[in-house]
């Protein structure tokens, strides 16, 4: 085996790229716990949805339609950012379902109510009114969503190989939670306003406008922190950093929920949520920038033999395995940017096919290679 082929083989092995995800694993206790808690969550949510469908069907339908569209936008964005050794759709869907059903129904709904009530009983209702949500939700909800990432890690240890995978999977789990919560807030908004569907739409607009610094981002940060905390075969554990990120996700969630109490009746009530948004986005970008290099390296090692074969040029590989700005500058610098985009898309498809086939020289790989050549000539 040549050195390049050996590196390719090592990259596939280390990254878990191309590995298929199978949820049904009867010998894996995580599978049974996942199923049990999704069923328990679905049972609790069914109780809520049946009430909403009976008395607030207009608000419930509005919430489902509006937030399904919001979900599509975020799903596209997360997939768009996951451009190297992409998380399989089945694994992403399993994470989304955990967030949507189990983390809400089997954990957060009951725990949040109980903890907020305990604060009211112990320190008074006014204390709970100000700080109850901020002290209950960040702990309950981040642990509930993080529990899902831990189960996925146990179900797919070969697929979750870097903090970047934790970031992306966390985003899917958090998005599931966020959309489930958004839909419930929509019909609860109507229920609190004597069934007024207009109130549901006010809630939908506010929740959509504030959807960037929200659960998908908290859990993405928590997920990357969890992977750093436990470590992976090729990413040594960094417990301090991992714990700090998980705590940061909880802290930012708490400050967001306490915005009303922090701002009080002052005209500067917007400072706390704006600060949370700025910190969250900065931390997210920092993790993104610092976890991508290993993913890029895997892409470089996987595609290096294709450079030797002359299928892709060194510059194309540099763009393929580079940052998004490197990719954009490469495309812009070409005489025919559209053709360059086509070639890179075909080369990316070739990389995925090579990974899927474990680096073997299969007919599918040869077809994908021919597609690169064809894209160049088209």
């Amino acid at each position, binding site marked *: 085996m040549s050195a390049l082929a050996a590196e390719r083989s090592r990259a596939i092995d280390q990254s878990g790229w191309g590995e298929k995800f199978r949820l049904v694993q*009867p*010998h*894996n*206790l*995580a599978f*049974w*716990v996942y199923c*049990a*808690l999704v069923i*328990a969550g679905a049972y609790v949510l069914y109780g809520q949805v*049946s*009430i909403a*469908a*009976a*008395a*607030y069907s207009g608000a419930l339908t509005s919430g489902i339609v509006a937030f399904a569209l919001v979900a599509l936008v975020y799903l596209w964005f997360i997939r768009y950012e996951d451009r190297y050794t992409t998380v399989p759709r089945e694994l992403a869907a399993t994470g989304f379902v955990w967030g949507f059903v189990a983390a809400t129904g*089997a*954990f*957060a709904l*009951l*725990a949040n*109510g*109980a*903890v907020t*009530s*305990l604060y*009211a*009983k*112990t*320190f*008074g*209702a*006014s204390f*709970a*009114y*100000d700080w109850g949500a901020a002290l209950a939700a960040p702990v*309950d909800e981040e*642990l*509930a969503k993080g*529990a899902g990432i*831990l*189960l996925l*890690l*146990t179900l797919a240890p070969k697929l979750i190989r870097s903090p970047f995978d934790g970031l992306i999977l966390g985003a899917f789990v958090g998005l599931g939670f966020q959309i489930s919560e958004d839909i419930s807030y929509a019909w609860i*908004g109507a*229920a*609190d*306003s*004597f*069934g*007024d569907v207009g*109130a549901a739409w006010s809630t939908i607009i506010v929740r959509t406008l504030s959807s960037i610094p929200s659960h998908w981002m908290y859990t993405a940060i928590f997920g990357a922190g969890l992977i750093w905390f436990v470590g992976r075969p090729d990413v040594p554990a960094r417990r301090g950093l991992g714990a700090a990120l998980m705590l940061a996700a909880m802290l930012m969630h708490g400050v967001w929920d306490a915005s*009303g*109490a*922090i701002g*009080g*009746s*002052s*005209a500067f*009530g917007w400072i706390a949520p704006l600060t949370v948004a700025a910190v969250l986005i900065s931390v997210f970008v920092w993790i993104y920038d610092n976890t991508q290099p290993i993913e890029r390296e895997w892409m470089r090692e996987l595609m290096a033999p294709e450079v030797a074969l002359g299928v892709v040029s060194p510059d194309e590989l540099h763009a393929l395995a580079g940052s998004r700005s490197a990719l954009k500058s490469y495309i812009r610098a070409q005489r025919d940017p559209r053709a360059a985009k086509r070639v890179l898309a075909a080369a990316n498809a070739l990389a995925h096919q090579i990974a899927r086939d474990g680096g073997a020289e299969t007919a599918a790989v040869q077809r994908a290679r021919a597609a690169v050549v064809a894209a160049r000539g088209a």
Partner: protein
Amino acid sequence: MMAVSAARDERRLLGLEVRTVGPALLVLVLALLMSVVLPSIDSTTSYRAELRRGDVVRLAAGISLVPTASWDLATGSIVGHARSPVGNTASTELVRGSLRFVVQAAPFEGTPSSLLTRIDEIDRALRRARGRAAETTARYAVTTRKGVVGVAEDFVGMAREGSVIAFVFEPLGRSAPSQPPQRTREGVEVVVSGPPDALSRNRDDIVAMIRSIRVAR
């Protein structure tokens, strides 16, 4: 070496891979703690911060209620005790033993009678969904100490009975100095429920609290 670690990964106990038991049990314990243990602790914990004479509960922006001392405030905020502004849509719950006094406030452009009709429609739909039945009495007028007239009806269910009262207040308040004054009228729904004997014993407290609801500048 790789064979050894692969063998370690696949070691089984009662048909389950040993490596999967720890994390899966951790998640299961967390779920039980959050969905069973915490609610159980909550249901056996009693209120330590009773309402005192002179406390005023903010029901919504510009609407308040004077609670009877010794009742407990389960949800809501006492004027001067909470930092967060109270908006136009808000819920308040007062409890005393098995008695519940729940207030829902939200903007409503209509009469107290039309508000009660809407509340009845929602209740009927919810009762149908839950398979529960309840009988309601004829409507009667209820007047607050400030002269605002509301509409009420009594209901009798399987385990509880009580009253539903609807008021509509003229706008005056604003939830925070930074926010514009409220323009729409404010609907207030009060639902008092509990076992019949507890309701009769606390009738005076309940009536006093309902009559104390007022627009607060």
